[in-house]
Structure formats: C-alpha cells, structure tokens
C-alpha cells in the first residue's frame, strides 16, 4: 500500500480495439441539459479518467454508462454490442462483466464485511457457497480487510469502507470497472493509496477502468488516457502528456487552476481588486 505510484502504462496505439464506445450521450433533467452529446472512446485494458469541475455531470455520465440513469439520446457500445433498452441481453451481459464503485460506496449496511463482498457472487452466479466464501476471503485478504470480516460497514473507517467497496467490485473478476469519484473526501495520503490500489488491481486483473474525478495530479499519473468534461461535452481526450501540452482554453483553465489561484492570491496580497469568473 505504501509503494510509490506506478508510472503510467503506455497508451494503446490508435485504432486498437475499443472496449467501450460512447457517442453523443445526452441527458436532460427537465429544462437542465447536463450532458449534451458526450463522446468517449475507451480502449480495452486501459485506465481512462474523466476529469471535470464539480457539477459538470461526471457522475451522471458514469451512471448513464452503468444503466442507472437512462440517456435521452446517444449510443453506448460495450465490446461491440449496443446497450439500449431494447437489447436486454446485451445489458445483462454488460452487468455481468462490469462493476461499479459508488462515490458513497453504497455498501449494504445490514450485512457484514464478508457478506457484502460475497453478495455479488451469491446473487448473480451459481458458484458453490464454499467457493464464494473462498473468493470473498481472497478479495478481503488482498485489500487487508480479513480481520474486519465480521464487522459491519458502519464500524469501519472511510478508507476501509472504500477498500471494502473495491473488494466487492473486483470479487466478480469484472472486465470493466466504473469508479465514481473514488477519492472523494479522502486526505492526500489516502487518495494516493486509492489510486495506487486501482492501478495495482487493474494491472493484476487486467480490467478496463473508467474513473471520474477532479483530482488532477493523481489522475494524470495513474491514467492511460484522460478526458475533460465541461459544458455538457467532452472537451478533450488524450494521453496525460497531451493533456499537459494542450492549448485548449478549458484544459488550460482546469490544468493551471493552481497557478491561477497562486496569481490571484498574490494580486490580492498586493491590494489589487480581483473579479472572479463566477462573479461575471
């Protein structure tokens, strides 16, 4: 857990097989258009991070992918199969091969740690009980939770709950894991640990990962590709290196926010009047 963050894996060559292909996804809530034609290409076996300010619809986008929220328009193709209401088989297949890590963990609070991890296997497979227990214990062991197996989620710390949610997500050996703000509310040390865990298990199990976050430095180190969601559209998708070099104004604003803050504070200290963008 305390090892330094691994260096990013090489980005697959362009034209490599797309595991997840999202085109023109639109979602409106009444008059409010949250997603206005979002595109994203996710190559197999990569970590793709969707960045964006708070409230730009990152979680809604991920929920559209997971099928929790139904998009109004657009197409989502998973491993070549279109996921839509009419294609129930493809959606069932998607659910079998995909896991979702919720921002608030969404652990079942009336079940113990071990029961939470065993639940997906118990409810979606015909694996014998003994094998379910073995696999659940193995997942707990991998995430250092073995000694807490008889406790309830409310008796665990925030970091442990996150690890438990990750154990539950990987126990089914998914091919795609969707991470919704996996580091929300964590301190920088634990944030690093979570990114470390994601990359470590992504390497170990070979799943494809789609993350949404606004933790820029960690995301750039841990991802093969990053995308920036702003104004209801994907403003950028490319490698972390390309993100660092991009002259796209929205990318620059997001990337250079720390420098902007530093400049603003320096100006304030000098007694200058500053008008923030939000005040305009």
């Amino acid at each position, binding site marked *: 857990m305390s090892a330094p963050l691994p260096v990013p894996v090489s980005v697959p060559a362009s034209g490599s097989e797309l595991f997840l292909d999202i085109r023109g996804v639109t979602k409106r809530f009444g008059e409010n258009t949250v997603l206005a034609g979002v595109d994203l290409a996710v190559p197999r076996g990569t970590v793709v991070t969707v960045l964006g300010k708070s409230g730009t619809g990152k979680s809604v986008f991920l929920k559209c992918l997971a099928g929790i929220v139904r998009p109004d328009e657009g197409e989502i193709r998973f491993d070549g199969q279109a996921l839509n209401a009419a294609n129930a088989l493809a959606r069932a297949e998607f*659910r079998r091969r995909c*896991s979702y890590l919720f921002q608030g963990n*969404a*652990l079942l609070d009336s079940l113990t740690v071990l029961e939470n991890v065993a639940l997906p296997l118990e409810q979606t497979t015909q694996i014998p009980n003994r094998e379910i227990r073995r696999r659940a214990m193995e997942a707990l062991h991998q995430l250092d939770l073995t000694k807490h197996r008889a406790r309830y989620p409310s008796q665990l710390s925030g970091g442990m709950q996150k690890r438990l949610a990750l154990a539950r997500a990987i126990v089914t050996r998914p091919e795609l894991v969707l991470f919704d703000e996996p580091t929300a509310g964590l301190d920088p040390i634990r944030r690093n640990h979570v990114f470390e865990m994601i990359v470590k298990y992504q390497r170990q199990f070979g799943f494809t990962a789609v993350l949404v976050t606004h933790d820029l430095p960690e995301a750039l180190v841990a991802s093969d590709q990053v995308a920036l969601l702003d104004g209801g559209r994907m403003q950028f998708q490319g490698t972390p290196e390309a993100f660092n070099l991009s002259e796209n104004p929205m990318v620059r604003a997001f990337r250079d926010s720390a420098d902007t803050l530093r400049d603003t504070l320096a100006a304030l200290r000098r007694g200058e009047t500053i008008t923030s963008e939000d005040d305009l």
Partner: protein
Amino acid sequence: MLRALGQHTLHIVDELGDFAVFTTRGFTAAIGSRKLGRRIVRAIYEQGVRCVPVIVIVGIFTGLVLGLQGYYVLNKFGSEGLLGTLVSLTLVRELAPVLAALMLVGQAGSALAAELGIQRNSEQIDALETMGASTHAYLVSPRLLAALVVFPIQAAIFCLVGLLGGYLSGSVLLNLQPGVYWAAVYKAVDPQDVAECFIKAVVFGLLTISICAYNGYNAHRRRGSTGARAVSASTTRAVVFSSIVVLAADYLITSLLVKHP
C-alpha cells in the same frame, strides 16, 4: 381544471399498473433466488416475532373491552350467556384480522418502507442493480412470502388472546360462568369463520407488505421531496395507504363471504 384532473387520473392509473407489476415481480423473482430461505426466516422474525408483543397487548385489551361492553348490553336483555358468541364472532370474523394487520402495518410495514427508502437513498438498491442482482428477489420476495405466513399466525394469536380478554372481563370480573362463556365460543365459531379470518389475514398481508415495499423502494420518485424527507414521506404514505386499503379490502371480502340468513 379538467386537464389537471385528467393528469391526476392518468398518474393514479399509471401508479396502479406500476404497483401491480412490482407485486407480480416480487413473487416471480423468488423463483431460483439463492439463499431465499434465509431471507424469508429473517423477514418472518421481523414481521412476526418482533410484532408478537404488540399483537398480544392490543389483542388482550380488545377482548377485555368487548367482554365488558358486550356483557352490559346483553345483560339488558338477560342474554349475557351469549357473551362468548359475541366476543368470538366479532374477533374471528372482523377484529382479529383487521387490527392485527393494522398493528403489523404500524410496526413492520413502516419499518420496511423506511428501510427500503434509506437503501434507495444511500444507493444500496442501485448497487444491487449494477451488480446484476435482482432487487425484487433480494428485497421484496422474502418480505411478501413471509407475510403470507406471518399475518394468519398473528391473526390467530390475536383471536386467542382476545378470547382470553373477553373471558377475563366477562367471567373473572363480572361473574359469568366460565363454562357458559367457553361453550358459547365453541358453539358459535365454525370452520367457515376461521377460514374467513385466514383469507382476510393473507389478503391484508399481501396488500400491506407490497404497498409498504413499493413506497420505500420508490422513495426517490416522490415528487416534491428528496433525501430524508422523501423517506419520511414514503413511510407516511405507506402506512396511511396500507391502513385504508386494509379497511376497504375488509369490506369487500366480508361482502363476498358474508353468510346470508
């Protein structure tokens, strides 16, 4: 005005259809669900064992009041010997299934609606859906199946305790011969009355548990309220609707099963 009325009617019809599908799925999803037995046992404990004290308390006081009121009314006509008949038929045909169901709505039904509402709020139900589990099989089926067992048993307990209450006020407090009381009970209640009691209990159990589960499960769809308010609104709605439906269904079943002279 007319437009609003039409929209409201359409909304009610839509919700009734949704409720029917929800209840049907609650039963059909049980087929092949793993560890269903364990979840049914837990639901029986929650609806049954935990609610026995309240059923016993309400049952004994209902019997005591029936015995007391019945004795003084019958005494005016010199017919206090019929107290056992009055108490037993009132309890078996009407009060036991209805009051037991209302008590279960207040205790187990409200708890169920609140639990599912909180699970919806904290994305636990979404988590079950994303892992590909059947939320109906996991959350609704065990509760519905348990209700089919628990409600008749609770109604039977209510009957027995109520009869004991009638005996305590009629015979122990007001000096009616115990033999006269119990003989009247024995003579008055026939198997059809007992069957009516159990039919009502099963129907009430099915209706109330599915109404409470439906409201909790759909707490996020409540218009005008979100978060904790949505949970409290759903729980209130579940209890109010269940209570009304129990009384309406009681009238309907009684009118279908009533013995014509």
